[in-house]
């Protein structure tokens, strides 16, 4: 019975609305006060039933909820024979709840779309050798699964057989199909566009990359800031306090009308709901645009940001260096190139790949007595020659003479933003190569947008030489750039900015070797194609390493923080206006109070909903 009434509260609201309409129609058109009163009495009783049940359920667990306040108020109105008030208040309360439900579902829709992409079933290889459809929860690591065209990949796994192309937009934000064949990794939540594959499950359920993203987003939307926790604590005592206040007013004034009006006016709806609504809509917008914001605390810090620190390689630059400039000295260059390639072939230094690509086809010779000098380069014996490959410091150690032309070339290469690779054969400089890492396309414009959004300091920290760092910094228009820094130096630098200069700092890095910096900054932003490390260590995740989403992320955080403040303002403002008009005006009554109260809840929800459509305004683009 109780459950039936609660289930049908929307229908009850409708019927009670119709009854109220009949009541007023008969009063105004026929002047029939008899129908008027009876219609309102029935509407009151009908409407009060679900509210009273909720109030009773709350009281049983010792909670004084809004339902309790409203129920007492309605009973009071009923007892003093004010059926008009009791009917309208119950109707507005129920109808308001219905509208809240509808609009709240909208604000949550963006995140729901994401979680609904989670796979639900899988075709699992059973003991009888047949594939059978099972719930995704029943898949264990090591199971063999079949994925057909158009189906979702149910787990993170490795392709055993078959071929196909997969749309990985749910993980990377990039909807270009990726080809998969035997041995390729596939990810849960991605869609097999064509082909058929059999996979073995490596990670299932919440352990998959997609599962982690969902968990993160789910936690983020309900994470609470200090201010919200305060509001929650406040709300716990607020409702009982209103009850006591109304009782005291009644004791003193013996005015039931006034006492029950206070009960209705005191309902704290918009205040409790305002901030979570902005939060969920803001995070939802981010999820749609490839930006994961980890909760309202993060949004708060992020929106007040004034300093952004960037790692260079892989963040501002592409991260795959290539040889940009070359100079040769003396003769036997072909031979020297062969020696250089032979040594670099055995190295895993990032510059080595660039050098090998540049040299291309050549004759390789056996390399002996290889000696690696940390931070300088390599010395080895090739074909009986002593070959040194490295930077200027290594040349000085090897007492290689650098003539005036060589020194001028070195200075020029460095100024152009190159890392240097010098090659000397038997103490004679033969080759000078300048390796540069291309700046990511669009980064310069994005940095300008960040500046317009109020990030005053754009700082780059890098392990590269100062010349390279300065060149990149000039090209990008950064405010500061520091080279020759180890990961721990970067973290220390960020700590200094925070502790000594009181700045609010975000660090943008690759998430793998920059984790100390990500952790020291207020906001850690990892550029990782949805990799586990990036997701776990950072506060903001840019899907698919897309630097271009950073301005949107910052703009969104600012808009969301603003939206929260607006909602708090609306909520507090409405309560203040209601209370003052109760004291100073004679038009305030229960019905108007309930109308304004429900109206303010809808106002904060609708205001929050605006965030779903947020885009970076033109003036920043």
């Amino acid at each position: 019975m109780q459950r039936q009434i609660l289930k049908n509260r929307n229908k009850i609201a409708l019927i009670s609305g119709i009854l109220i309409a009949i009541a007023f129609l008969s009063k105004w058109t026929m002047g029939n006060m008899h129908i008027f009163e009876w219609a309102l009495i029935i509407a009151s009783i009908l409407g009060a039933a679900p509210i009273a049940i909720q109030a009773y359920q709350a009281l049983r667990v010792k909670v004084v909820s809004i339902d309790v306040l409203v129920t007492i108020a309605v009973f009071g109105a009923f007892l003093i024979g004010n059926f008009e008030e009791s009917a309208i208040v119950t109707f507005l309360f129920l109808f308001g709840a219905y509208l809240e439900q509808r609009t709240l579902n909208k604000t949550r829709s963006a995140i729901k779309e994401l979680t609904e992409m989670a796979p639900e079933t899988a075709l699992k290889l059973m003991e009888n050798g047949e594939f059978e459809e099972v719930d995704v929860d029943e898949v264990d690591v090591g199971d063999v699964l079949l994925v057909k065209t158009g189906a979702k990949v149910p787990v993170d796994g490795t392709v055993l057989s078959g071929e196909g192309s997969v749309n990985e937009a749910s993980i990377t934000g990039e909807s270009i199909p990726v080809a998969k064949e035997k041995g390729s990794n596939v990810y849960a939540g991605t869609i097999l566009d064509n082909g058929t594959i059999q996979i073995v499950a490596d990670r299932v359920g919440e352990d998959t990359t997609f599962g982690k993203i969902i968990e993160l987003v789910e936690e983020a939307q309900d994470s609470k800031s200090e201010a919200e926790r305060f509001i929650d604590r406040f709300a716990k005592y607020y409702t009982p306090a209103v009850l006591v206040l109304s009782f005291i007013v009644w004791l003193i004034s013996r005015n039931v009308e006034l006492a029950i009006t206070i009960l209705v006016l005191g309902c704290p709806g918009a205040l409790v709901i305002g901030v979570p609504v902005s939060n969920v809509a803001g995070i939802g917008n981010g999820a749609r645009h490839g930006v994961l914001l980890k909760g309202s605390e993060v949004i708060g810090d992020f929106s007040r940001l004034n300093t952004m620190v960037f790692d260079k390689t892989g963040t501002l630059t592409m991260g795959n260096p290539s040889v940009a400039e070359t100079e040769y000295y003396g003769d036997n260059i072909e031979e020297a190139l062969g020696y250089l390639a032979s040594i670099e072939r055995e190295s895993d230094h990032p510059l080595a790949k660039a050098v090998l690509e540049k040299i291309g086809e050549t004759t390789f010779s056996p390399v002996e007595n290889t000696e690696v000098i940390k931070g300088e380069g390599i010395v080895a014996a090739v074909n009986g020659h002593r070959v040194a490959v490295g930077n200027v410091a290594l040349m000085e150690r090897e007492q290689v003479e650098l003539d005036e032309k060589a020194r001028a070339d070195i200075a020029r290469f460095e100024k152009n933003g190159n890392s240097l690779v010098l090659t000397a054969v038997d103490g004679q400089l033969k080759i000078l190569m300048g390796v540069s890492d291309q700046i990511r396309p669009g980064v310069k414009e994005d940095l300008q947008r960040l500046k317009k959004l109020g990030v005053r300091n754009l700082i780059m920290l890098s392990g590269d030489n100062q010349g390279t760092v300065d060149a990149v910094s000039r090209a990008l228009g950064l405010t500061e750039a520091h080279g020759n820094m180890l990961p721990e130096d970067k973290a220390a630098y960020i700590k200094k900015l925070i502790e000594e200069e009181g700045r609010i700092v975000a660090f943008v890095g690759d998430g793998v070797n920059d984790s100390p910096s990500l952790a020291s900054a207020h906001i850690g932003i990892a550029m990782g194609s949805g990799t586990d490390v990036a997701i776990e260590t950072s506060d903001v995740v840019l899907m698919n390493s897309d630097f271009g989403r950073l301005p949107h992320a910052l703009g969104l955080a600012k808009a969301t923080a603003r939206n929260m403040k607006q909602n708090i303002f609306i909520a507090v403002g409405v309560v203040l206006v209601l209370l003052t008009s109760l004291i100073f005006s004679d038009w305030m009554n229960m019905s108007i109070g309930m109308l304004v109260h429900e109206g303010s809840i809808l106002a904060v929800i609708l205001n929050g909903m605006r965030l779903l459509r947020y885009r970076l305004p033109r003036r920043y683009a």
Partner: protein
Amino acid sequence: MKAATIQLETLTCPSCMQKIEAAVKGLNGIEQDSVKVSFNTSKVKLNFDDDKISIEEIEKAITGVGYEVQKSRVKPV
């Protein structure tokens, strides 16, 4: 000790959370500090002692304050 994640019907009113929290915390065998009612995801997360109370009893307590339970998952801690 077991950890439960209980998915409820969509929560829309702010006072729901207080009610559900009070209902669950009032039960025997619930680790008090672990109870977390999430408004936006409409989920309840908690740890409970499965010697003292069953997941069905916890679900019943939530239904008792007027909220439908859609699905619950129990994992060992």
